[in-house]
Structures are given as structure tokens and as C-alpha cells.
């Protein structure tokens, strides 16, 4: 799951982060993720995994690392299944 997310985000033109060089638990905001890029990330994840993040999950913490994102995505994908 994490690798699928990493390669999805790496290809995104509006998120200029080098995800290949970031550890699973590296803080993405420290690596330069802007608020606007995090929104692009959220939208790309929703499309790729056919999920919708509820408002309660639209927080800084949900998108702060690849590991946190993978947790959130798998939680929502399980619910949808």
C-alpha cells in the first residue's frame, strides 16, 4: 500500500516532493509539503483508491507522513469494501 501511494504521489505534478527519498514515517510538512499541495494529495488519493475522506480526517496529521496516509487510506478502503 505504501509503495502504491509513494509512486502515485511521486508522479503528481502539483506536489513537488521527492517521495522516493522519504522514509515511511518522515514528516512531509518538514520536507516542504504546503497546505495547497496536501489538498492536491488528498484529491489524488480519493481518486486512486475510490474513497472519500470524512471531514474529521481532513487534518494535518492524516497527511503528515506516508505511513499515516496509508493507515487512513486502508481504514477507508476497508469500510468501503
Amino acid at each position: 500500500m505504501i509503495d502504491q501511494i509513494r509512486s502515485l504521489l511521486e508522479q503528481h505534478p502539483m506536489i513537488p516532493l521527492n517521495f522516493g527519498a522519504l522514509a515511511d514515517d518522515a514528516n512531509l510538512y518538514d520536507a516542504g509539503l504546503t497546505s495547497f499541495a496536501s489538498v492536491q494529495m488528498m484529491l489524488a488519493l480519493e481518486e486512486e483508491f475510490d474513497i472519500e475522506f470524512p471531514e474529521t480526517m481532513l487534518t494535518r496529521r492524516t497527511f503528515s507522513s506516508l505511513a499515516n496516509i496509508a493507515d487512513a487510506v486502508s481504514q477507508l478502503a476497508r469500510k468501503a469494501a
Partner: protein
Amino acid sequence: MDARTFDSKSLLDSLFENGILFESGIDGLYGRSGAFEEVIEQFERLVTRLGAPDKATRIHFPPGMSRATLEKSGYMKSFPQLAGCVHSFMGGEREHVQLLGMMADGGDWTALQKATDVALTPAACYPLYPTVAARGPVPAQGLLFELSSYCFRHEPSKDPARMQLFRMREFVQIGTAEQVRSFRESWLKRGKAMIESLDLPCEVDLANDPFFGRGGKMMANNQLDQGLKFELLIPVTSIEKPTACLSFNYHQDHFGQTWGLKFADGEFCHSACVGFGLERVALALFRHHGPDAAAWPTAVRDVLWSA
């Protein structure tokens, strides 16, 4: 103007009946009485006097700004629903005939207009950043500006405190993170003391901007988590939902990065602003002290008219 009843529609009606505001046929666009303008003038003097020791450079911008500047600022990423762009007719005689025909038939004649290079200014500080960036590196002690502009936001409403065209006065500090944070701290104190000196009930609270859409919910949460925006709230049209009359914003290095605002050593500048919603403050004064400014409490008049 009965302080016991708070609701936006009745406040608006009462402002019309008392000749303080004048209807234009469009919600959020109103004429202002001489008395209303005088209150705004005096309040602006008070703001300028409070900020005078800091020796800000004063710039007054018109209500329109460069559309290219607005585009580059990132405003459309966050607030596409509020932005306004000026369009004009640029066709020839043939198109003019067509336009008049469309108007006569009740058709959408605006389709024959094209976007000009002018956008409506959404906040007084948007035209400032490229102006500063063009002057070269920011000095180590930072830069301070006092700005004023009519601003536009497309949010028609019966709430007189939510106008589509309104005036904003701002102080903007550009400098290091530390400089701009201490600027904001000092205005949080000064702003609250100033409003209290006008005998208005107020509270300062953490706030977020009305970012667009579901992604905007996330940007708003980010803004709250990081404590980037505070508002000074005064009950104007509602006690439960008081109106933000002053706002205190820390932009981090967003505008520094966007406009290449740097110190001589290449480090990006941070910025912060304190904004005064002039119509909102005036409305709060009329709401709490009554429709006749001459009959306001002496203490309040002394503060405003000695400014």
C-alpha cells in the same frame, strides 16, 4: 438599533430607516451617510495614531489590482468563489449592434465582454507584495506598511456586516519569523485595548479563512492547527456568531516564497498583517451606541473625536 434584538435582516432595515445606509438594489452594496463616513474617518485616525510610533510607510491602493498579480498570489487556489475580475466590451461596431440586440432580447450580453487586466482587490495587502519585491532585498530590520483599500468579495448577503465592497485598513510587517510574530502579538494587545476603549464587547479567538470546497476544510484545519489566524469578534448581527472586525494573520513565508521577498543573504521573508474591517467597526459602534453618533457615550466620543 435596539441592542436587545440581534438579527441581520432587522439590523439592515433599521440602518436604512435611520438613513445610515442606503439601498442600491444589490445585497452587500450600500450608500453610506455622512455620519457613517465620519465615524470611519475618525476610526481610521485612531488606527493611524496607534500605529504612528512604528513609522509605517503608508500606501493607499485603488479597489482594482493587476489580474496577473492576483493570479500569481495563489488567491484562486483558496478563494475562487470570492474573486471578481473586471470585464469590458472590446469589440467593433458589428459586435456593438449584436450586444445591444442581446440586451434588448434579455440575452446574456456579458458574453460579448472580455476579461481586462484588472481584478478587484480582495484584501488591502495583495497589491503590496510585488511592489515590495520590485524594490530589491528587504533590509535586516524588516519593512512595515500601513495600507488602505476598498476590497471586493463576492458573497451577497442581507447581513450588513458582510458587504461585497468594503474598506480595509491594514498594517503589514515583512521580516523574520520572529519580527512578524512579535508584530502580531503587539497588535493583538493594541487592537483589543483600542476596541475596549470604544466600549464595545469583544473577544479574540483562533480563526480560519473561508477556503473553498472540501480541500478548503483541510486548509482551514491546517490554519487552525498552526495558530496562523486570530480574529477580534464583536457581536453585530448576532450574539452567538459575533462578527470578525479585526484579524491578525501570520502568513509564514507564503508571500515571501511566492514573490521572492528575500533578505540580502537570500533568506525568504515572513509576513504578517493586522486588518481592520472599517465598515464592520462602524456598524458595531452604531449597533451598540445607537443611530445618533452625537448621542454616543462621552467616553466613546472622546476617544474617537480626539483621534
